[in-house]
């Protein structure tokens, strides 16, 4: 079973040299820490920065330099700042190569829900709807089940959708899955997790073809 850090590490393996990547809040943010050192990657944050660097040293925070999570950050050499429309031109125009974000539910057809629980939580979608509607390469990072133990990989999302048919890959604490015709294809098991455990935790159709290897973190 993976902890959040390991989920981030596994996702980091999906990042290729030369990728521009947009990271959502939560587990996705951790991914930045585990990029292979021999590849070049640039992080875009939709509030208007490309070439995002690490947090500033204490005392060097600048209120004018933040990421989409409103955290103080730094800009690496070669970074640029821009307006919100141009930022979403990067996203909508498919210039961002990979989007990594969290989800409350994912359906077997790639639908995703992560912005609203009617009557309970209404924070807004922020940039998520633009990201999922445009990105051709979306990885969802999330726990396989919710706090009540219910599957978050469903036949059909029960919560209001963020986007339709857009998720391509999912990394959970239990498995690495791909959305294919017909459902969730189990690609890798988390270390020590059996196929049976994954099957029980997955409400949507789980597709298993042959031996399912264990992830290497």
């Amino acid at each position, binding site marked *: 079973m993976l902890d959040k850090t390991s989920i981030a590490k596994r996702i980091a393996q999906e990042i290729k040299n030369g990728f521009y990547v947009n990271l959502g809040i939560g587990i996705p943010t951790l991914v930045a820490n585990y990029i292979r050192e021999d590849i070049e990657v640039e992080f875009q944050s939709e509030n208007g920065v490309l070439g995002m660097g690490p*947090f500033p040293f204490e*005392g060097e925070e600048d209120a004018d330099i933040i990421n989409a999570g*409103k955290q103080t950050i730094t800009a690496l050499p070669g970074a640029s700042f821009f307006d919100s429309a141009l930022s*979403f031109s990067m996203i909508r125009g498919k210039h961002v190569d990979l989007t990594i974000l969290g989800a409350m539910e994912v359906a077997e057809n790639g639908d995703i829900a992560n912005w609203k629980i009617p009557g309970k939580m209404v924070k807004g979608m922020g940039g998520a709807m*633009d990201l999922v509607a445009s990105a051709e390469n979306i990885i969802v990072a999330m726990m396989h089940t919710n706090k009540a133990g219910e599957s978050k990989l469903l036949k059909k999302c029960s919560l209001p959708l963020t986007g339709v048919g857009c998720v391509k890959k999912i990394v959970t604490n239990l498995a690495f899955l791909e959305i294919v015709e017909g459902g969730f294809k189990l690609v890798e098991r988390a270390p020590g997790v059996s196929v049976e455990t994954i099957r029980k935790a997955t409400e949507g159709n789980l597709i298993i073809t042959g031996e399912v290897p264990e992830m290497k973190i």
Partner: protein
Amino acid sequence: MNKKVKNASVALEGVTHNMTLMLGGFGLCGIPENAISELVNKEIGGLTCISNNAGVDDFGLGLLLKKHQIKKMIASYVGENNEFERQMLSGELEVDLIPQGTLAELCRAAQSGFPAIFTPAGYGTEIAEGKEVREFDGKMYVLEHAFKADFAFVKAWKGDSAGNLIFKGTAKNFNFNMCGAANITVAEVEELVPLGELHPNEIHVPGIFVQRIFQGTDYEKRIEQRTTRKKE
């Protein structure tokens, strides 16, 4: 073309109850602090505010929310404000949540004279309910209509009397797109410099999009999430 006014009070002349306002900023980064304070001072109510966020409980648009000056909020993310959530769930506040990229582009559409845009964001979700959708090249898009606003309040780093603006860092955000997107655009700047000091290659917003400009005072520039690392 001298657009310089003395202070926020003069800059807000003509702002009245029930108007629609655009306010720049992302979170608390680059918000028009002086204009917001003056809206509180003048006790202008019944406002419809277009802004990416709604501030926090005791800063930014949260100050207007606390005084119940906002009737309707058009935003993309409002998660940092408890009073906001309370007013929304109790029905005191109307809320229209729209995708962030759509928000930015509908400002730009207003700025640029486009009546509407086709965007993929929100297709197949409740955001698209009741809206026209259309297929182009096998992909579905939602038709969204340009904003209409009475005033836009933006905040820049430097500006001159002609209304030219330069932003710093990620404070450019919606401030850029809202300039010229309302009937009257009011810019407040940290530093008002002499005409000719801003290099024409480096100006972000040409003055034509700005009707009034003033040098703000007492900028707090509050940080919402202070994240740092230690020097090794």
